């Protein structure tokens, strides 16, 4: 069953067609890869799904059988669609624990005025939630840094926190935008392993953008390929890597990336 479905999704920035008529389905409980050369529209696609950008007229997005086209970002989030950002966008001055607590926000059981009138109940709730979030931090290995401002974490820890903050939203689906960017290949492998355990533990459906194709090929059930905002190929990893259109898209740009060559040939 499709958890997420887009129909004729388009987005142009002035004259630039960043996403061009993309129709795509993501099945429940799958790991779906989204690949494509730099600037092909992967991040824009995520921004459209999560309400950060408004799509062009004629586009449709449905999630969990609810029409989320043109809905505000916080509403989409509350329906169980979470994401990470390519540039992380952590709350730098807030502590690691506070970052995941913000992720938990849609599930807060008291209203915004409650802290003023029912202090005791608010404190009781907060204590429970903090314990739950500490468990999560424990699981991703950041518990001992809970009190540190997010800005002071190392690069790898920041990537984990971005993941933790999204998981704290208890989503049904998680969109990951280049979760391993900037990490060494070994660390990317570790990160992907963590992501797969998180998927099992929290029963997630995952869409992942990753430019190291080897990683995508190894972990994804289905892969969609974008080029110039268009979906040029889709299918199993074996199908996609042998699809001439994909090879053309990557090699046609003379991208001298060893990773890509290696992935194509393996």
């Amino acid at each position: 069953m499709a958890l997420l479905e887009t129909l004729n999704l388009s987005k142009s920035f002035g004259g630039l067609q960043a996403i061009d008529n993309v129709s795509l389905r993501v099945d429940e409980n799958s790991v779906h890869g989204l690949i494509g050369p730099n600037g092909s529209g992967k991040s824009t696609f995520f921004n459209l799904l999560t309400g950060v950008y408004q799509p062009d007229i004629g586009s449709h997005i449905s999630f969990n059988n609810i029409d989320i086209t043109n809905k505000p970002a916080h509403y989409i989030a509350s329906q169980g669609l979470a994401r990470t950002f390519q540039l992380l966008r952590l709350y730098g001055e807030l502590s690691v624990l506070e970052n995941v607590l913000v992720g938990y926000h849609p599930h807060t059981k008291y209203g915004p005025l409650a802290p003023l009138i029912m202090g005791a109940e608010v404190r009781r709730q907060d204590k429970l939630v903090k314990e739950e979030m500490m468990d999560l931090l424990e699981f991703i290995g950041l518990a001992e840094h809970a009190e540190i401002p997010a800005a002071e974490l190392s690069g790898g820890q920041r990537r984990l926190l971005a993941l933790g903050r999204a998981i704290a939203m208890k989503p049904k689906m998680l969109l990951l935008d280049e979760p391993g960017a900037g990490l060494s290949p070994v660390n990317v492998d570790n990160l992907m392993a963590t992501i797969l355990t998180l998927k099992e533990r929290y029963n997630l459906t995952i869409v992942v953008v990753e430019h190291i194709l080897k990683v995508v090929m190894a972990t994804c059930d289905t892969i969609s390929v974008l080029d110039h905002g268009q979906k040029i190929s889709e299918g199993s990893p074996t199908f996609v890597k042998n699809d001439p259109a994909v090879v053309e898209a990557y090699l046609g740009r003379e991208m001298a990336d060893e990773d890509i060559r290696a992935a194509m040939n393996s």
Partner: protein
Amino acid sequence: MIILSKLTDIFEYLAKRHRLLPWLLAYVLLLPLPFVLAGLFNEYLIDLVNRICLFILLAVGLNIVKGFCGQVTVGHIGLYAIGAVTSAVLSLEPGGFGGALGFGWPVWLAIPTAVMVTAFAGLIIGLPSVRLQGAYLALATLGLGESVRIFIAVTPALGSSTGLMMIPSPSVGSFTLDSFTSYYYIVMTAALFGIYFSFSILRSATGRAFQAIREDTTAAAVNGINVIKYKLLAFVFSAVYAGLAGALFAHMPPGYLHHNNFTVIEMVTLLLMVVLGGIGNVWGGVIGAIVVAIAYDQTKDLVFYFMDRPIVIQPLVFGLSMVLLVMFMPRGIGGWIEDFQRNRRFIRRSEERLSGSTRNT
């Protein structure tokens, strides 16, 4: 430093026994202050302390919208004016001086009504924040705030150039709170509650939503925070503080207010408090309010003669200090407080680790 550390120790110890104990202690310690001041110095200082309490309310409130939520607003003093004039007009007897409006309400009814009116005005001053940011938002709020003052200045019903006079004092039973000392207990209690509530907000999901918006608005929206709702809520919270401060100002002896109390220079003074205090830090804001209010009071009548012409230099001094502060002390006093707290945490963790390892051996 050591004294500060000991003091923090005491407060933390008390807080462990009961959350409200430190607040209670602070309250008890503040009770005899007017008598100490009157005994050692003079009555005038009590008036100064009262005004400091109002500035603390203003600064702590402004800190919610600007510090916690990151929305630049320069219209806060306009909200203060709305609170003051509303409460004054509601409580004045009908048919007062110079065509001033009056409804003759009891003071204790006028004050909460004024606070509610100001909260609504805060919502309106906050509306530009839905679309504007940074300097544009500052300009829009400045325009709204200043137009409130001008409206008061040109409307005889609201005092215009003569101001509103003989605004009644509140009373408890048959006792009228019309002296500096008796009024001190109202404003001090209000200021302390204001600080306390500010912490309650900061440490709840509501406060975290404000801060997330400040740190990264897009990420906050994607985390499920209704950005517009929370921005406006921050404006309303801060307006409640400003409205209360304004209303209490109106009924403070001598019960007189004038539109000159709400000028841009007052706004700069208020911003100076928050910036000196360190944006987003509650205690920093309180200390900033105290320091700046005293400095303001001391330099108020400072006149400098140039070719026999008097020049009031206070506005220049305050404007300049603002620029210097932003340039050389961007984190303000709050920055020191945070460093201090972090050092303490670090020391405590190291101690725990040490004692832990000795236990193991």
